[in-house]
């Protein structure tokens, strides 16, 4: 629960661990007071906003803790709109802890995750889209999600949505022009023009909505299920991919009785690797449960890596096994494992599979083969290579609002086609503006009128 108050919060703003410097941030009505007490000789209370002030920092008991630089931001010209002090100290964990303790002793409290940003939002410094992006940034687990969150924060989504907003204001003001100023001597948009504008807006929203599944995958990690018969080498593959001994590996078939999840980051994309129990008609109940769970995981996966030990498996049985997986929209990569132990006859037997599926020959223990596999994984994610160029919606709230905007626009377009009176079409357009406004902030009558007066000569 976020406290909606002005009290002073403090937190280390740089990552924990030792860097060269650490930045401790104070925000709230006592920020200056506390900093001034810590640095009695730096005259912080008289310092100008946005000034950096060097000085010695003492504990409340008077022990010298560090030499630091305190940067002063007077509200409302600060990130949170409150008074902020950022203390840059030496990056030792010990010093940082001492300074944080000193702040707490003088009346600050530790900030909760995202609390600076929540204040910035509550004080109108960020729009909701930006604030949510910051929240996502905090939770970002990988470079990909990080880039995405940053992109959104910098206005990637905001800009794209702003463009869309302009477009909709454009259409709506053309309609309103016809309604409120029908008696004026101006040229009104014809239906084709309105229809074209609507169609291009609809296309733009569709792209944004479609980007959500990719965006979400990037944020949450793309679920990648390792499947195959017992002892096909799934856990070995997982370990080589992750480069550690996460899964218990043994030669005894059925070692992995439950599913195991690990995160694998390739080129900034997160894959949620899910190792599963080998699928066979299980002999004991516990293993049967594991098999059942494996099938469930496969069903919800985005990518299935199906491993086949080509030294042990008959290609016809392998093909039958794959069919039994009953894959629908999952992307399948068939991994022909133990290539290093196989003879050419065994390799050739699997030619028929290669014609039907994307297959990769590999040895689960070979780093080179694994590097190739990683390239294939990246390729299976459509648009992933263009990740940094595209605007991607990652937020459930945004996509909901966009979907409602889309529905309203489609209704408006149908209305136009049915030659409904324009005030009725305008009704749907307004619903679209309201939905989009949930992301961008309200779109008001003044926005429409401003657009009309800016473009048309109104007034008898």
């Amino acid at each position, binding site marked *: 629960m976020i406290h909606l*108050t002005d009290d002073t919060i403090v937190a280390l703003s740089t990552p924990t661990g030792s860097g060269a410097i650490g930045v401790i941030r104070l925000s709230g009505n006592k920020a200056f007071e506390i900093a001034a007490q810590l640095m009695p000789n730096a005259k912080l209370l008289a310092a100008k906003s946005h000034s950096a002030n060097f000085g010695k920092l003492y504990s409340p008991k008077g022990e010298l803790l560090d030499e630091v630089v305190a940067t002063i931001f007077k509200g409302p010209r600060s990130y949170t709109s409150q008074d902020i002090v950022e203390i840059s100290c030496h990056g030792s964990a010990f010093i940082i802890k001492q300074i944080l303790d000193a702040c707490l002793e003088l009346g600050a409290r530790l900030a909760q995750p995202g609390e600076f940003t929540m204040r910035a939002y509550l*004080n*109108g410094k960020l729009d909701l889209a930006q604030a949510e992006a910051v929240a996502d940034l905090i939770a970002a687990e990988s470079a990909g999600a990080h880039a995405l969150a940053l992109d959104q924060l910098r206005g990637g989504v905001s800009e794209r949505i702003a463009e869309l907003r302009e477009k909709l204001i454009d259409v709506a003001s053309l309609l309103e022009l016809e*309604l409120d*100023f029908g008696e004026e001597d101006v040229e009104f948009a014809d239906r084709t023009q309105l229809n074209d504008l609507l169609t291009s807006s609809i296309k733009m929203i569709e792209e944004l909505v479609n980007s959500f599944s990719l965006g979400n995958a990037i944020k949450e990690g793309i679920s990648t299920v390792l499947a195959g018969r017992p002892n096909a080498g799934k856990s070995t593959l997982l370990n080589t991919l992750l480069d550690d001994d996460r899964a218990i590996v043994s030669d005894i078939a059925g070692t992995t009785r439950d599913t195991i999840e690990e995160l694998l980051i390739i080129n900034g994309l997160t894959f949620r690797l899910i190792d599963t129990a080998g699928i066979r008609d299980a002999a004991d109940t516990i293993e049967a449960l594991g098999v059942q769970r494996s099938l469930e995981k496969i069903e919800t996966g985005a990518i299935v890596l199906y491993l086949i030990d080509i030294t042990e498996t008959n290609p016809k049985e392998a093909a039958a096994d794959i069919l039994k997986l009953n894959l629908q929209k999952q992307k399948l990569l068939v991994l022909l494992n133990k290539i290093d132990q196989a003879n050419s006859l065994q390799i050739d037997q699997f030619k028929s599979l290669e014609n039907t599926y994307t297959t990769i020959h590999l040895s689960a223990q070979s780093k080179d083969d694994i590097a190739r596999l990683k390239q294939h994984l990246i390729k299976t994610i459509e648009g992933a290579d263009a990740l940094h160029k595209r605007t991607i919606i990652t937020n459930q709230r945004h996509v909901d609002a966009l979907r409602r905007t889309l529905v309203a626009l489609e209704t408006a377009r149908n209305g136009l086609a049915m030659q409904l009176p324009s*005030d*009725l079409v305008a009704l749907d357009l307004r619903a679209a503006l309201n939905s989009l406004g949930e992301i961008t902030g309200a779109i008001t009558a003044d926005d429409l009128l401003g657009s009309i007066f800016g473009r048309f*000569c*109104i*007034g008898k």
Partner: protein
Amino acid sequence: MFPTYDVIVVGGGHAGAEAAAAAARLGSKVCLVTMNMQTIAQMSCNPAMGGVAKGQIVREIDALGGMSGIVSDRSTLQFRLLNKSKGPAMWSPRSQNDRMMFAAEWRELLEQMPNVDFWQEMATGIIVKDGRACGVRTGIGQEIPAKAVILTNGTFLNGLIHIGEKQFGGGRAGERASTGITEQLLELGFESARMKTGTPPRVDGRTLDWSVMEVQHGDEGEGRFSYLDIKQPEKRLPCHITYTNKAVHEILKTGFDRSPMFNGRIRGLGPRYCPSIEDKIERFADRDRHQLFVEPEGFNTCEIYVNGFSSSLPEDVQYKAMRLIPGFENAKMFRPGYAIEYDFFQPTQLNATLETHLVKGLYFAGQINGTTGYEEAACQGMMAGINAHRKINEHDPFVLKRSEAYIGVLIDDLINKGTTEPYRMFTSRAEYRILLRQDNADVRLTRKAADIGMADMDERLDRLKTKEELAEQLDSLTKKMSVTPDQVNGYLTSIGSQPLKQGVKLRSVLARPHVSLEGLRAVLPELDTVLQGQTQELIDHAEVNIKYEGYIHREVEQAEKLERLEAVRLSPEFDYIGLSGLSNEAREKLTALKPMTIGQASRISGVSPSDVSVLLVHIGR
């Protein structure tokens, strides 16, 4: 020399006249203080009432028992229902009026009200005791005591008229400005600013060549504003249309260096939607002509209003340019156009009853609030009159919601957002356009006015009942009655609608675009019997209710959703400063504007949804 009045109204324009009438018709003793009794209810600018959104307002005023609709009908020289080709929300009544007849009718109506006294003099100050308005002071030093005061000063407060490089004090052409009130209000802590508006030249109709202009006639038949049967003048007059041209623009440009608009002498903000001709030429340089409406000022005068040619250029430039307009080659001018600057008070200083936050019992209505237009002024006057009466009788405020009336939209916008240019009503300002139609203003409002004791509402209530009965009758008939392909396919094909394959309910046929009750009654005798003897107005209303049922229902639902926030009341003493979690801007705005409900708070610019959540959290929702 004076009794203690219940309500004093300062100013006798559209706002003042409606304010006096409303308070008097509720039972208050009213004194109308005006600088000149000969100019009560002047149409200072164009001789017309209504138009898109404005026409709906006149209908609302009428439905509430105001007078503007009646006066307009009695003085109409042309009537049109605009936007008839669009949906019913857009149908907008507009009339051209005989300017002198309009003013005379208004004065006569006011004189017939025994509760209205008149006093002709300039009001120069308000008597304020203990933060309450209790009368006005006049130019010759009279003090008139009252329990409430309504200021409707129009453009008169420190009015300054500009024609070219000349400028002189005045509230309207030929009338002096009013001084003293602004200065006193500033001392009391009010904030004022300047606004600007303008008016075109008036010309001698005898010198115009009508043959080269397009004629624009009004509608056939009797359109009207009032829900009552008001006798209208029988004669109708047309308007004419002509256009400026490049030569006209070139001449006008020669005066730009002497234009008070362009040389910075006018500092007030003008309306973007009612620009002067020089503004239009400057801002839309690519257009080589602008449309002008040539409108008669009355039945018995040759004075003509040149709509679209508003200007504050030097009079010789106006004259020279005008004579290059087709039809105006030999035109003689009665008076040039001019611009006028005047004081207004940012309406965020008012609450929803139009009473000021600073002085209890003091109300502002009309252009003093930064609005423009007779209709906008008139409805504010009426609402201020009603609320002043209710306040001194300790009744609840009479406030209309945004979903109930354009009047509600107007006042809500003014008090919550303020305005940076003269505020005019547009239908796009209303969220619930489909609900706020000209055909149902009486359904929306007449009972409300009757409930608060407005006089002479019986006939209105009777007519409303008849109207609603027919609507209900048709509603159930169209639900019950089935029609066969045989009966209606001839009609349907004739209007380009798909013929029926099997029998369906009448309602589903009526729901189709272009299908009307008028068309159906010709082929359905049973329907014709019901419609027999009913006026077109009543039939139209019933038809709209059925045809647009889905849309109406949708807006009603949306309005009801937001209604919940309107129901959460906020005390004017609420301490926003001490409320943590509010943004600083919201804190300031809420403290200054003192919203009556959470709904109103949510519409104040600078109050974000998160501020509203914070408010809701604090009052325990």
